[in-house]
């Protein structure tokens, strides 16, 4: 399954991939585990995910072609 990845802020400084092709990830929790294994720095950051532009509040199933954004703490204003 191919997932599109968007990274923002300080996370975009070390997660630079745009796409993840894997058969081992089925939901957002699985994606988080995978990302934190590949990018241990991520564990230090209170990041949030957005799935297809909607901020993820609880674990959600992923489908091929989904767009997942990885977002560090917000600092607008």
């Amino acid at each position, binding site marked *: 399954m191919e997932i599109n990845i968007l990274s923002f*802020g300080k996370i975009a400084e070390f997660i630079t991939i745009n796409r993840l092709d894997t058969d081992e990830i089925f939901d957002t929790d699985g994606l988080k585990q995978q990302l934190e294994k590949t990018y241990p720095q991520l564990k230090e950051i209170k990041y949030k995910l957005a799935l297809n532009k909607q901020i993820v509040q609880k674990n959600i199933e992923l489908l091929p072609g989904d767009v997942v954004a990885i977002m560090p703490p*917000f*600092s607008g204003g």
Partner: protein
Amino acid sequence: MTDKKIKNIFVEGAISTSFIADSIAKHSSKKEIGGHSIFLGQVRADDIDGKVVSAIDYTAYQETALAQMHEIREAIFNKYPLTCMHVYQSLGTIKVGEICLFVFTSSAHRKPAIAACEEIVERLKAELPIWGKEIFEDGTHQWKENK
């Protein structure tokens, strides 16, 4: 929620004082307004361990931020008897001393305008995917975090 209802809040670069003046002036024809409340964010020359901030570079996950702002707008209009509500957030590099946020509420009486303005600022900072990269005078940077 239809897409056409979603208002843009993002402006490229700093918010000018003439833009603020024009926004206020446009409300002189709204005769039912008795009070306006305005919050302006200005880029501060923070001193962090001897390094001084010279600018903040703002980026956003724009579509998600606008959808989130749309929800906030609806909640605020349901909660307070407002006549008007306007929000502008800068993107790009905003220098120290420049305005990067403009929140503007109007109501028949002062209390709803003041309370709504404050609540919008708090929610915007907590809920909108926007990031400020603080650029120091020596060219290094750090990522801002809202408290």
